[in-house]
């Protein structure tokens, strides 16, 4: 082996420590910056607040949630990351994002000193999913990019599907009204 081989320059790091929430999906742990999460709700509480989304473009999104005048799309984090199907129990409502993430559970909240860059060998979708990696004890945990749950294109597609569904519902209502008016006039 080559003892002369030098250690490559350490990957770019953010030196500022930050607080993260460690959550799990299908036994896989992830971290997300605490300040990226606006609210954590139980998935059961969505029953009254979320509406089913009529679209077949993105399987990972089945519901939308209206919060303070904004529409959030509820992303199943397991499907997003290609993990085995689980029964999520919590929803992370994210700041500065149109996505909420359905996750299995919160493991812990802690402070991490460094978010390491994702090695460049990772060249797939994970570059969009993760801000980097955190070393917590002996474990390497991906730090999720809050805006990585939905791409701008996916949001546009979902917005378009939602608008089309609303237009279709309006048209159906108008048509029903017209039929009722015609019926009343015939009588």
């Amino acid at each position, binding site marked *: *082996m080559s003892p002369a081989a030098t250690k490559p320059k350490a990957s770019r790091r953010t030196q500022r420590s930050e607080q993260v929430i460690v959550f799990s999906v299908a036994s896989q742990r*992830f971290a997300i910056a605490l300040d990226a999460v606006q609210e954590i709700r139980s998935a059961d509480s969505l029953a009254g607040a979320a509406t089913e989304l009529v679209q077949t473009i993105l399987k990972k999104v089945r519901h939308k949630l209206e919060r303070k005048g904004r529409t959030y799309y509820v992303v199943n984090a397991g499907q997003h990351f290609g993990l085995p199907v689980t029964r999520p129990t919590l929803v992370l409502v994210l700041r500065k994002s149109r996505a909420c993430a359905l996750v299995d559970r919160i493991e812990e909240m802690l402070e991490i000193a460094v978010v390491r860059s994702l090695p460049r060998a990772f060249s*797939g979708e994970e570059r969009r999913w993760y801000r980097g990696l955190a070393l917590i004890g002996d474990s390497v945990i991906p730090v999720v990019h809050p805006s990585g749950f939905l791409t701008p294109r996916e949001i546009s597609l979902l917005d378009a599907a939602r608008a089309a569904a609303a237009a279709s519902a309006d048209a159906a209502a108008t048509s029903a009204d017209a039929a009722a008016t015609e019926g009343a006039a015939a009588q």
Partner: protein
Amino acid sequence: MSATVPEGGRSFVLMRLTTRRFALPAETVIELVVPGSLQSFPHTSPLLLGVLVRRGQVVPVVDVAQLVAGPETQHRKFYLIATRHFGAAREWCAIPVLGDCELISATPEAREEGAPSYITGAVHLGEEQVPILDLDGVFGTGVEDDSLVEARS
């Protein structure tokens, strides 16, 4: 490990991936390590098995054998840590190997016509012709990925 380099020759590390051996330029090899705990997380990059933590660094584990030697069935016991280039940057990667790595000195021969682009030549050891592997050629340079990192930071 030391070796006398013949005139015009170079040093190579021979690694056994499956039944075949491949040579890596010795200057790209960092060390041979026994497996620590391989950790994985969701990703869509081909050939990546996960990561190792080595000397405080997160080192991606790349199953080169899948590409250069076909589907793998043998249990590879060690990781050979080598350097890859991404544009001007370098990064370590760990390659699972069977363990019997060897440092040799040899004069490389030219690449055979029709050989994959990641094979840059060969070294002859008796009857055996050992292909020289170019790790950067296996994966490309990853320059595009680097720009993504820069854009995000």
